[in-house]
């Protein structure tokens, strides 16, 4: 029986990996400047192709597709962790305020007129700061309930949204306002391979930690009392999980702006197929999140003459999928 179940899981992993590889190379071909699959193949096997195609792949499509892949898996894993740790399938990675905090940082950097690298740094730092603020406020209540933490996250998120509004109001020219708006909706058009190399170690280390902790995450989802009596150090494990999930979201938001829905929707779809055991949910979320973001990014840069912000597409694709997921579970939701 067990062998059969594991076989199904392994087949799912292989099929999704294959889809990811196919989509990755397909996305190299698609866009305003079409590149043939033959040229893509030649590029990756270091053969010479025409100069424009080479430049399009090397400087435009390859970096942003790689980054889309990392963002997709980061947000999906972050969402899976938050949903499981707080035992609530309907929360997103922004639960404790990381995305809204990062938005404040990015908008502030844009307002001051910093470079795109500094915008990312600001976003990352402010994302973490917002979560730290949430944790700090919740600690003063001396109530260990997760509900308190979630409510504090809502409060901090609300404050951060107001601050973003303030920055937009203060933005003195239309250029800055447009840059903020575009950033707030998710944007990979300025992504470079350098961003990929910055993001890669964070994502790899965090995803590896998430896989290592996935068994404990299952137990954490049962609450503090049961975790303790099943031999899990609840406080320490929860803190570690929050750091992993927060850094995954913070780095994604820092590089690609705020991209909604992926963190909420992907883990829910995964659970529909493999159940709630995080030993399966985390690895499959990594693959499905990457697949989803590559599709979204390819649509964003190829469907219209101008770049479409990523959150618009994730919203349009994510909403029906999410409603379907809720529909499937309608009897369990009370």
């Amino acid at each position, binding site marked *: 029986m067990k062998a059969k179940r594991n076989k199904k899981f392994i087949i799912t992993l292989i099929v999704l990996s294959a889809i990811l590889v196919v989509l990755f190379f397909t996305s190299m071909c698609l866009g305003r400047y079409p590149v043939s699959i033959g040229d893509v193949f030649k590029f990756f096997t270091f053969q010479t192709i025409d100069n424009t195609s080479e430049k399009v792949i090397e400087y435009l499509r390859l970096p942003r597709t790689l980054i889309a892949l990392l963002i997709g898996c980061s947000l999906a894993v972050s969402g899976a962790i938050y949903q499981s740790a707080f*035992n*609530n399938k309907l929360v997103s990675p922004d639960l404790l305020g990381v995305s809204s905090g990062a938005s404040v940082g990015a908008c502030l950097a844009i307002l001051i007129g910093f470079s795109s690298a500094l915008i990312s740094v600001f976003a990352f730092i402010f994302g973490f700061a917002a979560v730290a603020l949430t944790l700090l406020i919740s600690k003063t209540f001396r109530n260990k309930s997760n509900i308190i933490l979630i409510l504090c996250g809502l409060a901090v998120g609300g404050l951060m949204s107001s601050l973003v509004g303030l920055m937009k109001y203060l933005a003195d020219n239309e250029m800055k306002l447009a840059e903020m708006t575009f950033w707030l909706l998710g944007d990979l058009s300025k992504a470079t391979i350098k961003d990929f190399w910055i993001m890669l170690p964070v994502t790899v280390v965090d995803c590896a930690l998430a896989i290592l902790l996935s*068994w404990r995450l299952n137990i954490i989802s*049962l609450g*503090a009392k049961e975790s*303790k009596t099943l*031999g899990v150090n609840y406080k320490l494990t929860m803190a570690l999980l929050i750091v992993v999930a927060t850094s995954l979201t913070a780095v994604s938001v820092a590089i690609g702006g705020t991209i909604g829905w992926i963190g909420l929707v992907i883990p829910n779809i995964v*659970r529909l197929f493999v*159940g*709630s055991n995080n030993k399966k949910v985390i690895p499959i979320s990594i693959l499905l999140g990457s697949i989803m973001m590559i599709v979204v990014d390819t649509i964003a840069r190829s469907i219209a003459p101008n770049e479409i912000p990523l959150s618009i597409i994730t919203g349009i694709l994510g909403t029906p999928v999410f409603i379907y997921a809720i529909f499937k579970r309608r009897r369990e939701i009370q």
Partner: protein
Amino acid sequence: MSNIIEVKNLSFGYDKTKKVLDDLSISFIEGRIIALIGRNGSGKSTFLDCVLGINEYDGEILISEQNIKELSSKEYAKYVSFIPQSVQINIDFSIRDFISFGRNPHVGFGLSIDASDYQKIDESAEKCGIKELLDKSINKVSGGERQLAFIARALTQETPIIIMDEPTASLDFGNQQKLFKIMKALVKDGKTIIFTTHNPNHLVNLDCDIYAVSNGKLKKIDELNSETVREIYGDEFERDGKSFLFKL
């Protein structure tokens, strides 16, 4: 038989002005069923939360002569397994996965459970009569079956002590009987079971050590009779043979 749990000068209160448990000292003998009875709010669950190391109490609690404050979560979980009162779960683990969490104290960091662990899961499920349900979601079985899954999880944890908070609360008459039968069998295997209950009738035919919780203390009750039950619950009942009936 030696003492498996020793409580020395235990005090605890949710706020500074009122102590729920007040300078309580008691010891429990190994290999027995230990029943804690008392009124709502008397401190039964609070006492359990202290023994579980959840409440930050004053005093000492020793399990197998070890101070539980000095044990790591993992070490503690090798001595005590716990079955909570409310057995509602929001996340739909399969019963097999759910029972497998009981192996956690015995596996290393990040490691998964192996074939011998899965065999233990199967054996525990068989003992509790839920082997056919292993692949079902824990959300989609009855309250009684879910309770049995919790017991199976406690068995796979292989602890000498099992603590149950109001285990009969959500069970029908038949399942209550089943639960007590399993408890008796476990004690025969050398386990010590501590459980709380509201109903003195549950203890009439059970060979157990009974403790009444009231006024911040635990008092051993040598014999459950009209007088001792009246002391705990007040005057409003009558006796019919061995059972205690409501007086309406």
